[in-house]
């Protein structure tokens, strides 16, 4: 099911399905036209000498008339094919651009080089922020409200829908509908800087019940540390440079510059899909982000080994 692989053909939603059908139709029609053109070309090349042997005036004239006939029909057919392709594209686009009724609204902000995801809700206590990995319920239309904080990015989840740009100073929208539960991966599709390739995106399509369970869990503040080491980790987090950019709900850390870490432990990867989320990877990421993702905005943080160990344990415990 597109596990860890982007595929626009292995579709999991009606929108991607329509796009894939259009792609198949265009490919089939153009392939047939191509074969016919090549066939006729070969035939004409072989026939050239036979044509030259025609001696009489009358014979030549009848051949010209035949040629005019063939060209007229071929032109008409070309126009017809182009109109058919144009119309099929028009109808697919019309259905893709129809705004959904009563969608779930998610605000997606592109950053160098990660995705900020915020679930919108009229009631502020029901809003939640996460990063790079997000969940949607199957069957329900989701409207993404796309913006960018720095440069132009492009949202691309090929098994669910097509691309849409995130442009600074502008707001774009895109609709997601997932048919079947599963994990789908996406990618920034507009070159946005040194680490454009390491700006990945993971979508979990859940059954509505699972989604609600996940949402309720994500609405909770960051888990209280249970052990002494985790308590120490939290105090390292709130006293080192982490707090200037990151937030953990329920603590003093409330900056919105970097990804929200309230439920970091529940995500599969860190640094927008660069590394799997293990305490070891977290530690090397904190110590030397510029070695793993040169050009990312996260600065290196020098910490004594004990503090670093406590910090990664605390971060891993934030489920």
């Amino acid at each position, binding site marked *: 099911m597109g596990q860890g692989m982007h595929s626009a053909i292995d579709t999991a939603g009606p929108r991607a399905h329509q796009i894939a059908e259009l792609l198949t139709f265009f490919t089939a029609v153009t392939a047939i036209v191509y074969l016919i053109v090549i066939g006729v070309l070969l035939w004409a090349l072989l026939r050239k000498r036979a044509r030259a042997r025609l001696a009489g005036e009358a014979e030549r004239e009848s051949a010209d008339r035949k040629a005019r006939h063939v060209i007229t029909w071929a032109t008409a057919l070309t126009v017809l094919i182009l109109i058919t392709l144009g119309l099929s594209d028009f109808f697919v686009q019309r259905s893709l651009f129809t705004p959904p009724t009563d969608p779930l609204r998610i605000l997606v902000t592109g950053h160098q080089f990660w995705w900020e995801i915020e679930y919108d809700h009229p009631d502020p206590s029901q809003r939640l922020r996460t990063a790079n990995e997000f969940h949607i319920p199957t069957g329900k239309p989701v409207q993404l409200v796309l913006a960018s904080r720095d440069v132009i990015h492009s949202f691309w989840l090929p098994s669910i829908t097509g691309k849409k740009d995130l442009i600074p100073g*502008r707001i774009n929208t895109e609709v997601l509908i997932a048919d079947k539960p599963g994990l789908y991966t996406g990618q920034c599709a507009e070159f946005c800087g040194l680490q454009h390739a390491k700006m990945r995106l993971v979508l979990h399509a859940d059954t509505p019940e699972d989604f609600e369970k996940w949402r309720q869990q994500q609405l909770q503040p960051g888990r209280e540390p249970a052990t002494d080491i985790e308590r120490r980790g939290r105090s390292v987090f709130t006293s080192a440079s982490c707090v200037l950019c990151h937030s953990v709900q329920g603590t003093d850390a409330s900056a919105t510059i970097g990804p929200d870490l309230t439920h970091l432990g529940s995500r599969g990867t860190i640094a927008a899909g660069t590394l799997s989320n293990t305490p070891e990877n977290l530690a090397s990421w904190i110590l030397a982000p510029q070695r793993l993702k*040169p050009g990312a905005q996260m600065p290196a943080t020098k910490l004594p080994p004990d503090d670093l160990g406590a910090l990664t344990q605390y971060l891993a415990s934030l489920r």
Partner: protein
Amino acid sequence: MSSRCPELALACVALAVLAGCHREERRVSEQLPASTPLEGIVLSDLRAGGTPPPQKPEFIYQSNAYAISQGKQLYEWFNCKGCHADGGGAIGPALMDDRWIYGDSPQNIYATIVEGRPNGMPSFGGKIPPQQVWQLVAYVRALSGQVRKDADPGRADHLFTRKSEQSLGSTTPRASSPPPQPQ
């Protein structure tokens, strides 16, 4: 002559153009000194006796466009704006003029950010990593035109009197507003 050998003329022009090519290095992962020892910083050129102030070391971010623009971003992220506005000053002193209470050398500005200063400037030592402090220093100096002109970042979009072209026509609020409260 040149009309007879256009290739030669072209090659000369190409060579001249190539000589001008220089790609700036993005210093993303260098380990900068946490600071020059803060005690040694001279806050004022005024002193008893006639000894001149010590020679200031060269500041590597002086002409690095990447570092200066990173500093510009951090200036906003870390809310320097909150007190110093866009350089014009508000409840904090202006940074775009030539009056410096605690010195305008990179080392002095570094010390001011790291140590804090009386009457409101907080200390960011231990919170902002050294490399980012140096980037901020570079931008603060750019505000008063003390960096190389070609490395200076452009003016931010919001400082122009007209909206930038790509922001025209998008006035819809992004997040939904809270439900109306019963009166």
